[in-house]
């Protein structure tokens, strides 16, 4: 990549041009997009059919619900992880992330409905806290009997609200632009959503504060949701599995998937949304590094748990290894390890790969598949454990491999399709790059030449 070409890709400095360029993507809809949407719509309906079918056929058998739990965990953690890509740089005042923060927020809000739909039957299947008169292992020591169900559901709702709130708060100025610069239906939406936002100094400072508060809130909720759901939905179903880093590893896998989703979406928007000037190579480079860092973090958390079990060699330690690693899901484990860590790590370790447009995207696809396998590896065996063993000190009977049935496959395809469909739907309303974010970006950073070196001058407001 030569120097000149690189510096050609920079957001235009004229606000009007920015506005028009960014909003143009919400208006033009190609026919292929419509076809894709229809196809995804059909798949989504089939997914719902799958969930209902699953409920009717396997409604009484907890051991058959592993894939449903896995797909829920996958969708909620990767879509929920995406806003972290916006939040972390926001807290660290990193300027580069401004062009992709909207996309991150959109992804964060895209899976609200799917999550809640899948969650409801799963709560039904979740064993109560007191089984046969005795309290089972759980983080809810003395809590009321249906605490897991209540808090799991509530936490997911909280995450949904926080995600939507974050998107709404940060998109407020764009709604105002929509209100002021469009006609008809869009104007009405803009008017409704933007409220009285006119861009006064007070409103701007409130906005910044709101984004900050929502971001911090979202971060804590995300961690809380992971702790609660990952423990209740997998760890406490397996007798003897005691793994303190597990919620963090789970969350880290989610964030890894979230970064991957943002990279993929950014790539699509760059390619099909004419956003070349906004999503330039610097963005992909930074995202690639983030992807690399999250992959390393994930393997570190996983390994921290693994080595303790491996060395511990106690009955429950061995059972953990038998169930989740060398047991029924050994091939999925290997695939997950390859796709979550080995491939992305070996791919993204090269600066040439990170510092390109396509490199990080390939890494992101690989990592996303890895996260998917990893969730299957965790949830399916955990749900397959015979519920009768729930009071045991350690797992004595390792369940066999559970393969997905037709309902599971329908559900997996349908739920993913519905998330994609939601993203497409949102893309029709608001631009995927915040206009105000680009303005700020332009104000704060500028490519400059210093003596002989090329560089960027970044302003650091307090």
């Amino acid at each position: 990549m030569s120097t000149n070409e690189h510096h050609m890709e920079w957001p235009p400095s004229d606000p009007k041009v920015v506005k028009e360029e960014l909003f143009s993507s919400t208006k033009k809809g190609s026919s292929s997009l419509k076809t894709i949407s229809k196809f995804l719509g059909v798949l989504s309906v089939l997914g719902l059919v799958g969930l209902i079918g699953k409920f009717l056929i396997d409604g009484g058998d907890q051991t058959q619900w592993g894939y449903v739990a896995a797909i829920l965990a996958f969708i909620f953690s990767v879509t929920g992880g995406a806003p972290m890509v916006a939040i972390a740089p926001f807290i660290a005042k990193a300027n580069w992330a401004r062009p992709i923060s909207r996309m991150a927020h959109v992804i964060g809000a895209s899976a609200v409905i799917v999550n809640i739909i899948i969650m409801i039957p799963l709560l039904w299947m979740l064993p109560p806290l007191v089984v046969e008169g005795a309290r089972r292992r759980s983080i809810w020591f003395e809590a009321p009997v249906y605490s897991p169900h209540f808090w799991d559901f509530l936490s997911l709702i909280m995450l949904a609200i926080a995600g939507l709130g974050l998107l709404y708060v940060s998109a407020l100025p764009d709604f105002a632009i929509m209100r002021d610069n469009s006609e008809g239906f869009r104007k009405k939406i803009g008017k409704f959503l933007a409220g009285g936002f006119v861009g006064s100094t007070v409103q701007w400072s409130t906005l910044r504060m709101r984004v900050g508060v929502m971001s911090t809130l979202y971060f804590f909720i995300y961690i809380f949701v992971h702790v609660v759901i990952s423990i209740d939905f997998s760890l406490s179903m397996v007798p003897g599995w005691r793994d303190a880093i597990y919620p963090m590893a789970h969350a880290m896998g989610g964030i890894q998937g979230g970064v991957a989703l943002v990279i993929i979406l950014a790539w699509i928007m760059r390619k099909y949304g004419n956003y070349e000037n906004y999503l330039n190579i610097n963005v992909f480079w930074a995202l690639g590094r983030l992807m690399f860092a999250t992959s390393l973090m994930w393997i570190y958390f996983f390994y921290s748990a693994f080595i303790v079990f491996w060395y511990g060699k106690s009955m429950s330690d061995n059972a953990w290894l038998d169930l989740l690693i060398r047991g029924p899901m050994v091939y999925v484990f290997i695939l997950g390890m390859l796709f979550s860590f080995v491939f992305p790590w070996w791919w993204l370790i090269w600066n040439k790969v990170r510092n390109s447009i396509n490199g990080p995207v390939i890494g992101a696809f690989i990592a996303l598949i890895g996260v998917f396998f990893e969730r299957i590896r965790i949830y399916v065996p955990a749900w397959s454990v015979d519920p009768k063993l729930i009071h045991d000190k350690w797992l004595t009977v390792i369940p066999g491999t559970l393969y997905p049935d037709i309902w599971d496959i329908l559900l997996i395809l349908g739920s993913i399709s519905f998330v994609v469909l939601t993203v497409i739907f949102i893309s029709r309303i608001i631009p995927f790059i915040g206009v105000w974010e680009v303005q700020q970006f332009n104000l704060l950073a500028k490519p400059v030449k210093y003596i002989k070196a090329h560089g960027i001058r970044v302003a650091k407001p307090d």
Partner: protein
Amino acid sequence: MVTEDKRSWGMVIDTDKCNGCSGCVTACQVENNIPLNDQNKFERGRVMSWIRIERYWEGEFPDVKARFIPILCQHCANAPCEPVCPVYATYHNDEGLNIQVYNRCVGTRYCANGCPYIVRFFNYWEPAWPEDLRNHLNPDVTIRSRGIMEKCSFCIQRIKRGSRKAKEENRELQDGEIKPACQEACSTNAIVFGDLNDPNSEVSKLSKSESDRKYTLMPQLNTDPNVVYLATIDPLKYKDLGEKAKSNEH
């Protein structure tokens, strides 16, 4: 008798027979050159005793009963103390013994932390005996210097001597020929030592015939000990039987 290299030395301790007389403790102390435990050592929690008798009270006074469990190194097949030693001072040999090599030990005390039975002891000082006990020390056992770990060796000096004798006399080692000091001193024959891999040895037979009483300490840790305990017999369980027998007599 199985061949020499497939031995697995083990012990069966019948807690029902143990009356807590501490004969084994004393015998071990003498046999293995263990320094005397004085008041100061007790106060500072530095007592050394390769085998010890743990006493548990059962019931309320005056209907109180004492239960005794002799605890010694369990010679675990899957010993948590072994992998943590940085210098291989403790390892498993092919006779199923958990060996402590004094001269390799540098005294990190990591093995002691790894041991769930707390049967490893550290020499905080150079060992010392009263003058008149000096010549009573066992020449077959190393005197451990300060700064190293020690623990029950299943009286390895006796095992070695016994196997050597059998070899010199060109015969197989007989079951019961080798007796560790604790077994020799046990007044109630609660301790039986032998080869667990030999199906005809007394330890194998005992642990088979009494399989409903058989248990090992802390099974959740998966240490696979070579010391097998036989649980105390619950007299209530046999009370009915006895009364039945009584009524039959009449």
